[in-house]
């Protein structure tokens, strides 16, 4: 029986991993994601989960352990936050290139210096070009759901890629919310067992990862890129199945809120969407035609879906929760890709960005009011005056 409980995002991630019957788990403590591993450690200790729980000696080892496990046919699970995510940097590309579909849970944390516990997307965003699937949840419920959806997509033989399932530190990871846990029969219907391709074995010996010929370097990259042409289709199928089996209502790529007739729109990712929805409601009451688009997957980037969802809007404010120092817009990363996605439209919306929710700061309803004011002025003047606004600065 599906059951409804109140739990944090960390607990929800652990419940998702348990439902997926993960077999090899590798931990290393760093706040705030640690609570996921604390929950899983207890589940293993209590005999609720038949898995090997390995205390990695660092995040680099965590990724290496799950790489080895996935190469040997086990469903593997790990996670990290902040500088832990970047410490493991060497292993992201070999994992994706080797097509090992393990999963990594991220509860975001600001990178150092100087040591800030607050949430910020920069940690996981650093890895976005390593060939992983990457996306953000906005609630503990979606964390649980994404854990299952990601295993299903990642382990699909058309995909076979590792997945990064992100949630904001504290805002989601540590704030309890209502979560409906699926019945195990639903999970079984949705998520087939992991079927590795050419795993390490003594009966069918294989070599994993020998060096390629010099003329195969570019083809290898092209083939890795080509996988991402198929991924959106698999995500659509998996999301449709998930919605049907679990009775949810996810848009596969872009969570759209009052967008249909919107003149200005906020482009957000993660839990700040919850505040944003309220802000949209309030603005609507004041007669401002506001809407919101929330990105569910950063990789693969839903180019066309965004163009379709946002093409009719007059001005878009990208709420950046990560940094791209010295980047084209001198703000965050999302605006670059959003602008690129809209470039080929006949009528392009105006796009600016707002640096908000950095270093763990809350984005308040009043901040959205301010953004709406900027966007409304842009619409009136039919001009983007600035690429980036730093909220409160």
């Amino acid at each position, binding site marked *: 029986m599906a059951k409804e409980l109140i739990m944090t995002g960390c607990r929800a991630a652990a419940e998702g991993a348990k439902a997926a019957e993960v077999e090899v788990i590798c931990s290393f403590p760093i706040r705030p994601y640690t609570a996921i591993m604390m929950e899983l450690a207890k589940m293993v200790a209590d005999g609720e989960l038949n898995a090997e729980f390995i205390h990695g000696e660092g995040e680099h080892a965590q990724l290496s352990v799950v790489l080895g496990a996935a190469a040997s046919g086990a469903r593997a699970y790990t996670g990290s936050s902040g500088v832990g995510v970047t410490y493991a940097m060497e292993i992201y590309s070999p994992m994706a290139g080797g097509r090992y579909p393990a999963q990594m849970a991220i509860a975001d944390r600001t990178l150092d210096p100087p040591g800030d516990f607050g949430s910020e997307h920069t940690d996981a965003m650093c890895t976005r070009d390593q060939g992983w699937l990457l996306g953000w949840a906005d609630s503990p419920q979606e964390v649980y759901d994404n854990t299952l959806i990601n295993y299903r997509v990642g382990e699909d033989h058309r995909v*076979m890629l590792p997945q990064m399932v992100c949630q904001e530190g504290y805002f989601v990871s540590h704030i309890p919310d209502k979560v409906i846990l699926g019945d195990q029969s639903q999970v079984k219907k949705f998520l087939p067992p992991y079927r590795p391709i050419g795993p390490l074995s003594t009966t069918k010996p294989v070599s994993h990862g*020998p060096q390629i010929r010099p003329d195969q370097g570019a083809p290898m990259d092209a083939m890795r890129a080509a996988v991402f042409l198929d991924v959106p289709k698999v995500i659509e199928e998996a999301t449709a199945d998930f919605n049907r089996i679990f009775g949810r209502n996810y848009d596969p790529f872009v969570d759209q809120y009052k967008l249909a007739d919107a003149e200005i729109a906020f482009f957000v990712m993660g839990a700040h969407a919850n505040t944003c929805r309220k802000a949209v409601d309030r603005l609507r009451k004041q007669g401002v035609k506001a809407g919101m688009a929330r990105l569910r997957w950063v990789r693969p980037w839903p180019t066309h879906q965004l163009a379709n969802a946002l093409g009719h809007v007059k001005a878009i404010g990208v709420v950046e929760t990560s940094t791209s120092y010295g980047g084209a817009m001198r703000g965050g990363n999302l605006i670059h890709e959003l602008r690129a996605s809209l470039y080929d439209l006949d009528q392009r919306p105006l796009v600016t960005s707002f640096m908000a929710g950095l270093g763990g700061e809350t984005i308040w309803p009043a901040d959205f009011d301010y953004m709406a004011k900027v966007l409304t002025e842009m619409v009136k003047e039919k001009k983007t005056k600035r690429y980036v606004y730093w909220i409160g600065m």
Partner: protein
Amino acid sequence: MAKELPGYGTINVPKERQVPFGAVTKAPVCTQQLFITSNWRVVRPVKDDEKCTRCLICYMSCPDACWIFKEEEDVMEWVSDFCKGCQICINECPSDALTAVPELDFPDGVVRLDKPF
């Protein structure tokens, strides 16, 4: 949508340049025939069966597994395809049964081949 947006096209990697899935290859059996190394050598070990005691030291000394003991025939067999001519076996042979002979002394010497392997 008023206008059709550009797509991603397709990626067609020529078959001969394709990399196997995840760069996973089947393990070789007995020898790696894709990597013949006989054309590396300038000398080869030549064996005197009178002196050879079948002590198997050459067999245990070769990095490239180029000495095989044929038990039924009671003879050591040299594997030409992979011998790199390092001469460890010659140095190790306790009964002086092996001699280094230049490849040029053999009609089929690998250094004579018009086309290297």
